[in-house]
């Protein structure tokens, strides 16, 4: 395929939402509610019906204020779970809206399980059970019903920013050779986080058998990095504890079915070695660090023990997974595996960058505005507020949408769209389509493998039990700079591969920032997520602060930002 006759399509909208997933679709509904006169346009890389983290469904809401809890107690819990360092203002603002957004989606048709009195069925302190197989279509249809326009199969590559004010974005279609130039009065970026930065658990024909969507490739972070937005806490990677092979969530087993972690000797090692941190209730990073150390020290495999389950409970367990990770049920059937007879083997995933679980992402104010005027962020791409999950992404989408609507009303409502320099657009389009014109060069999957090898071996990947030291990180940094200079050799045979090219370009930009952050924090705050063997201790005296970064004149500059405690109490007590 040759580039040359691509068409440029110009679009204008009041509010552009980049990414039509969990946060983006909800934001679209809320923006139309807050200001029905606004034109809202979603640009979506796949199709909003089943894109993003909710593609296969969801079986629980994991951020909900159950009876007896409060938004403040939620903040205390999240703070302790994140080793005493979070943006309390952000987490509190989410917590105050969790129950409202959950009830709203229930009203749209989401089945939430209830007890005999009609109360939501809790599955842990902050969790309720749902039959969420159709959750994504439910919120996608609501966005359409609310009047949002949607452009599917449009891959956004860059934001348009002038004098630190957002003006829109550019994208290309993976269905036809079209380059979109979208002008907007405000933009919400809601693209999700990044998988595939590190070598994943499975290889070859199974390399995409991962927990986080392999199609979430860090685009939202990367476009912000390139536009000079300030980013925070990339060093707080997210490593999930998942079932081995089919990398499915384990909360269903631990919280839903009372399964405990045991090692090869049958020891309840979390209780034995991490009792001071809360044993199996230890902060999330420790619940990955613990089993990883067991494996490293020769006491693996590690299991979640399900052998206490009755056949009826196994059936319920399968139903639970069919709502979210049906392929695990298929794998058990194919391998004649019965969780009532054998414990389920578990392991840590590749490290992801996911602001909805940890807190890597855009540095935002409480209105969700980034450091670029008119650019808002919500969901996995927004930083500072871990433990969001699905409902927190809705809450944050709502806040971002309402703030963006207010911003447009106050600052840019009467703004005339300026004519965009056509020469500038042409240069950008040529650059975006360039891999189609190269007959010889590097295929995107080759470059992806190269990136994943560097990150796995020198920046604390699975093969290194997530541990790293300064020397390794400096090697990673050097190799990434070299790799960055190789993107000019990327070659694509069609528009799908062109998308793959931009995915690896984005991943490399995210990885470079990640390594800078990992180098800068000279302590170990979140074991496994960020285990620096040269600085193995947590050091509140010097490192109770945020590590932020910003791309300036081609260089990643690091800034420190202070932590502020809003909710009183011991920061390490949940």
């Amino acid at each position, binding site marked *: 395929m040759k580039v040359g006759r691509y068409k440029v399509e110009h679009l204008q909208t009041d509010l552009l939402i980049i990414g039509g997933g969990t946060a983006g679709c909800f934001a679209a509904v809320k923006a139309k509610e807050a200001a029905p006169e606004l034109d809202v346009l979603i640009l979506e890389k*796949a199709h909003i019906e089943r894109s993003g983290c909710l593609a296969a469904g969801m079986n629980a809401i994991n951020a909900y204020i159950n009876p007896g809890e409060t938004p403040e107690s939620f903040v205390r819990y999240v703070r302790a779970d994140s080793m005493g360092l979070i943006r309390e203002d952000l987490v509190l603002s989410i917590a105050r809206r969790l129950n409202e957004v959950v009830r709203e989606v229930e009203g749209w048709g989401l*089945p939430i399980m209830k007890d005999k009195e009609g109360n939501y069925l809790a599955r842990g302190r902050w969790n309720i059970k749902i039959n969420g197989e159709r959750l994504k279509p439910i919120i996608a249809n609501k966005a359409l019903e609310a009047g949002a326009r949607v452009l599917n199969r449009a891959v956004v590559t860059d934001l348009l920013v002038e004098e630190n004010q957002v003006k829109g974005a550019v994208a290309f279609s993976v269905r036809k050779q079209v380059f979109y130039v979208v002008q907007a009065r405000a933009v919400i970026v809601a693209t999700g986080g990044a998988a595939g930065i590190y070598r994943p658990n499975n290889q070859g*024909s199974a390399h995409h058998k991962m927990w986080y969507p392999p199609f979430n490739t860090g685009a939202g972070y990367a476009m912000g990095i390139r536009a000079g937005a300030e980013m925070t806490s990339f060093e707080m990677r997210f490593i999930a504890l998942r079932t081995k092979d089919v990398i499915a969530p384990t909360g269903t087993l631990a919280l839903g079915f009372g399964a405990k972690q045991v090692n090869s000797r049958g020891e309840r090692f979390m209780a034995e070695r991490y009792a001071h941190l809360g044993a199996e209730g230890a902060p999330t990073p420790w619940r990955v660090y613990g089993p990883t150390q067991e494996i490293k020290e020769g006491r693996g495999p590690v299991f979640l023990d399900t052998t206490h389950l009755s056949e009826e409970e196994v059936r319920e367990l399968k139903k639970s997974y069919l709502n979210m990770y049906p392929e695990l049920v*298929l794998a058990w059937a194919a391998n004649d595996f019965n969780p009532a007879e054998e414990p389920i083997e578990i392991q840590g995933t590749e490290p992801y960058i996911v602001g909805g679980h940890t807190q890597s992402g855009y540095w935002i104010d409480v209105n969700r505005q980034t450091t670029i005027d008119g650019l808002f962020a919500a969901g996995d791409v927004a930083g500072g507020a871990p433990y969001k999950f699905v409902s927190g992404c809705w809450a944050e989408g709502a806040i971002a949408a309402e703030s963006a609507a207010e911003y447009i009303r106050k600052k840019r409502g009467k703004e005339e769209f300026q004519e965009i320099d056509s020469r500038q657009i042409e240069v950008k389009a040529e650059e975006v389509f360039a891999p189609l014109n190269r007959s010889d060069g590097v295929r995107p999957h080759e470059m992806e493998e190269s990136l994943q090898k560097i990150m796995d071996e020198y920046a604390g990947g699975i093969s290194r039990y997530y541990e790293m030291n300064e020397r390794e990180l400096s090697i990673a940094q050097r190799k990434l700079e070299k790799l960055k200079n190789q993107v000019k050799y990327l070659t694509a045979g069609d528009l799908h591969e062109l998308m793959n090219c931009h995915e690896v370009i984005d991943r490399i930009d995210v990885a470079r920032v990640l390594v800078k952050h990992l180098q800068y924090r000279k302590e170990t705050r979140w074991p496994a997520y960020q285990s620096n063997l040269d600085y193995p201790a947590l050091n509140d005296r010097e490192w109770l602060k945020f590590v932020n970064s910003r791309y300036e004149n081609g260089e990643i500059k690091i800034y420190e930002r202070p932590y502020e405690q809003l909710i009183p109490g011991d920061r390490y007590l949940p």
Partner: protein
Amino acid sequence: MSVIFDYNQCNSCRGKDEPFCVKYCPGDLLSVDSETGRPYIRNEADCWDCMVCVKSCPFGAIETRLPYPLASYEASLKPRVLADRIIWHLKDASGREEVFEIKNLE
């Protein structure tokens, strides 16, 4: 392996802009073969096994086959999507069958 098509069942969603499976795949992995006019998977290794295409097919013509390193050849899991529920038919490697009916819309 990833998904397999039963072309005796598939009619390429005749009359639609593109087949539903092609339209909805979150990874843009399904495409229409320009010679046969049939949908196919362009890169099996990139499949996430999310079953979106399987659920979207009006003819039940698509089946998920997990990557071989993770799962033996036999066994199948087939969803039937109804207005407010989904019915899963599971068959394990020994031929045992289970059916699960789950309401997914109130």
